[in-house]
């Protein structure tokens, strides 16, 4: 088999046992790797009892998977999955960096982690070996110290085991921060200080397993490809396509903090009470000229290097550092909180990363809390202080309370939706109307009310990853950014910001063949492979549990806020239309082979070879 290292490591943190697992060609050929294979593995092992599995219990399985294209398709990523503590389904959450390449060079395609360690541990993955090591000394530490201490420790170990052979390079490190250790659902798996796999809430899963970090160092080559000459030719063609994308290279998504609000009216402003602003203080020119100390920053094999490095050099926020911040973090820890200056935004992003939160999720929750304060539902007595829009100090205090789970922070650490239920119960009010979430997950910073952004009415309600803006359902199933296409990238596993041009997308099929030897075509993918993965993910989402069970249709809806008209800007008055959603949703379900409630049909599941999924769904949900 080509394109794969050929083995996976299984780690049981409860017993300390580590063993190797091999998946046969028939499985890998159907599911590739990353998100697809995670869906398969999680379903096979947990599907029968899915609704009873506590995502934060030792029974949950954390998967850390690369894919056959990782390291080959320019711009590499890792895909992290498990039962999501936010959506209660399966979310494929990707994160860029060198870890996935290091893992493949160490001879592993992925890690399957279950159980719960008695004390904090980290995993060290080196050539053909996975070790469980003590992490007590980094428990409680943030991104900077965690990286520094574990990196130095690993360098010492590597030198000790193979003295004098080389100046050792750093292992690549996936880790969690203090908020994940306190099992907050709005946290991320992190790397390189500023990168995070936030969607899904797998930082909390690592925290619940007492798993502080995973370190990867592999000395081997990438797994052998089927036709290396062809692979080489395609890689350089894709690299050169990416070289042409001037604005993406220069500004990354960092231009969007102004653009998306101003041009598209689809940016969260003050907990989505608005989606338009004309705050020129938040223009990308201000970021570029005032805080970007590195204008091109990227991860293994990336020709675009859309990331930037921000450092605040002067003023009250001196020393704060983050990436661009990318658009999502500009929006959620900027405009969504009524904050419109680069320095304040970078400061909150810096803090978010130090504490280990997901910027989108924590920004969504902070905005929700601030709106409750604005409306007098949460008071100074509830919070311990006042929380006004634009108040950096107030948001810092609240974020720290969430990380420490102190006071109201303990409830908010559960994420917006669950906090809305809990605080609503305390106050005797329905607060879910202020929660801009989809299936328990804060929605990405791209609204649909103006109808100008790339997302559609069905994008979030029908996505199998809840509010994930990087995995939107689209009426045109084969569209470049449709969920079915994204599943390809997330199973590949590589960065889909390097495949936005149709020209590049056309090269992915020959690249898959050149790497694996398998003649997978667009038709095979869209007619069979993607629907199979999608159906498993949808099934787990419908099963949910144990704390919440989503109701088909009722919960396949847009947040209440988006049915309110936009209050300002050139598209003032536009809002989502329920009948339009209902019609589009009905057609989407039909197109992917699900019934009118969005339950994958028996005939669809049987055609895809998912009889066990069908059986489980029928026994649990009953026939329509």
């Amino acid at each position, binding site marked *: 088999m080509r394109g794969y290292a050929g083995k996976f490591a299984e780690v049981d943190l409860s017993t300390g046992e580590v063993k190797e697992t091999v998946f046969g060609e028939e499985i890998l050929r159907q599911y590739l790797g990353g998100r697809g294979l995670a869906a398969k593995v999680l379903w096979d092992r947990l599907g029968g009892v899915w609704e009873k599995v506590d995502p934060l219990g030792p029974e949950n399985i954390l998967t850390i998977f690369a894919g056959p294209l990782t390291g080959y398709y320019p711009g590499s990523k890792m895909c992290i999955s498990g039962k999501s503590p936010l959506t209660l389904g399966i979310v494929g959450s990707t994160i860029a960096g060198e870890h996935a390449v290091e893992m493949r060079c160490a001879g592993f395609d992925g890690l399957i982690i279950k159980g719960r360690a008695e004390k904090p541990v980290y995993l060290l993955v080196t050539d053909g070996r996975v070790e469980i090591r003590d992490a007590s000394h980094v428990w409680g530490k943030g991104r900077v110290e965690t990286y520094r201490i574990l990196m130095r420790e690993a360098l010492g170990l590597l030198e000790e085991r193979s003295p004098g052979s080389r100046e050792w390079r750093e292992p690549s490190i996936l880790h969690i921060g203090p908020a994940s250790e306190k099992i907050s659902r709005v946290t991320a798996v992190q790397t390189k200080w500023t990168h995070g796999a936030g969607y899904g809430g797998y930082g909390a899963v690592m925290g619940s397993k007492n798993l502080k970090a995973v370190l990867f160092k592999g000395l081997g080559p*990438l797994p052998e490809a089927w036709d290396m000459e062809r692979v080489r030719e395609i890689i350089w063609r894709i690299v050169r396509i990416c070289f042409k994308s001037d604005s993406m290279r220069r500004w990354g998504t960092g231009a969007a903090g102004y653009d998306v609000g101003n041009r598209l009216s689809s940016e969260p402003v003050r907990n989505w009470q608005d989606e338009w602003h004309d705050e020129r203080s938040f223009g990308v020119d201000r970021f570029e000229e005032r805080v970007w100390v590195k204008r091109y920053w990227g991860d293994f094999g*990336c020709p675009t290097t859309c990331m930037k490095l921000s450092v605040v050099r002067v003023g009250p926020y001196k020393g704060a550092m983050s990436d661009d911040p990318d658009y999502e973090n500009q929006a959620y820890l900027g405009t969504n909180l009524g904050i419109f200056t680069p320095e304040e935004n970078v400061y909150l992003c810096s803090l978010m990363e130090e504490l280990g939160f997901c910027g989108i999720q924590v920004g969504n929750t902070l905005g929700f809390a601030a709106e409750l304060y604005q409306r007098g539902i949460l008071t100074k007595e509830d919070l311990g202080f006042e929380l006004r829009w634009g108040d950096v100090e107030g948001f810092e205090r609240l974020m720290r309370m969430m990380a420490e789970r102190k006071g109201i922070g303990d409830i908010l650490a559960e994420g917006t939706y669950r906090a809305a239920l809990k605080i609503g119960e305390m106050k005797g009010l329905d607060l879910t109307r202020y929660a801009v979430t989809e299936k328990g997950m804060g929605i990405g910073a791209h609204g649909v009310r103006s109808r100008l952004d790339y997302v559609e009415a069905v994008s979030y309600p029908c996505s199998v990853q809840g509010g994930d803006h990087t995995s939107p359902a689209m009426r045109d199933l084969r569209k470049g950014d449709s969920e079915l296409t994204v599943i390809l990238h997330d199973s590949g596993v590589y960065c889909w910001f390097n495949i936005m041009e149709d020209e590049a997308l056309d090269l992915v099929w020959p690249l898959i063949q050149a790497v694996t030897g398998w003649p997978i075509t667009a038709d095979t993918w869209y007619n069979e492979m993607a629907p199979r993965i999608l159906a498993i993910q949808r099934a787990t989402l419908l099963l949910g549990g144990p704390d919440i069970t989503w109701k088909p249709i009722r919960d396949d809806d847009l947040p209440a806020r988006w049915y309110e008209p936009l209050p300002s800007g050139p598209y003032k008055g536009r809002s989502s239309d329920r009948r339009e959603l209902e019609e589009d949703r009905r057609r989407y379900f039909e197109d992917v082979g699900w019934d009118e409630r969005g339950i994958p049909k028996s005939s669809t599941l049987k055609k895809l070879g998912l009889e066990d999924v069908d059986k489980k769904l029928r026994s649990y949900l009953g026939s329509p």
Partner: protein
Amino acid sequence: MSAFEPIWIARDFPKCSGCRLCEVACSLHHEGRIWPEASRVRVFMRVPGAEFPHLCAQCHDYPCVASCPVGALSVDKKTSAVLVDREACTSCGACIEACPGRIPFLHPGDKKATICDLCDGDPQCAMICVEGGWNALRTVKREESHSYKLYARKPDEITKDLVTIIYGEHGEELAR
């Protein structure tokens, strides 16, 4: 012999994006595969954001060549690169210790000393770095008046300086 002008790979560390396409290009050229730890240029990241390429500087006095107990290293008269006789190399690691930057390494495959050979005059790492517009690595004319040896430095030493440029006064603390 044609008139080949000796070259050098100029490096400009603050411009390094950390993308590692240099490693992809180098290992594809020398190994026919993507093999980061066999790449003659290796990007270090002791501190995120302070990435830089680490590769042979072709010191004027070639301490690595002088250190080899079996004479396995020599200087290419055409390019001025250090060439390794892989048959003769005993994997003793003396060249690694002799290099002020600890730049040579034992190849993870055959365990032989591995050093940048300037791709026989057409360095692939610099080519992609320039084409991508980063210019952290750039092929220039080698001028004998310049002390290229200054660039043979250990990763930790380079990092200590680089973090100050990138992170300002907090840099030193980050690079501990």
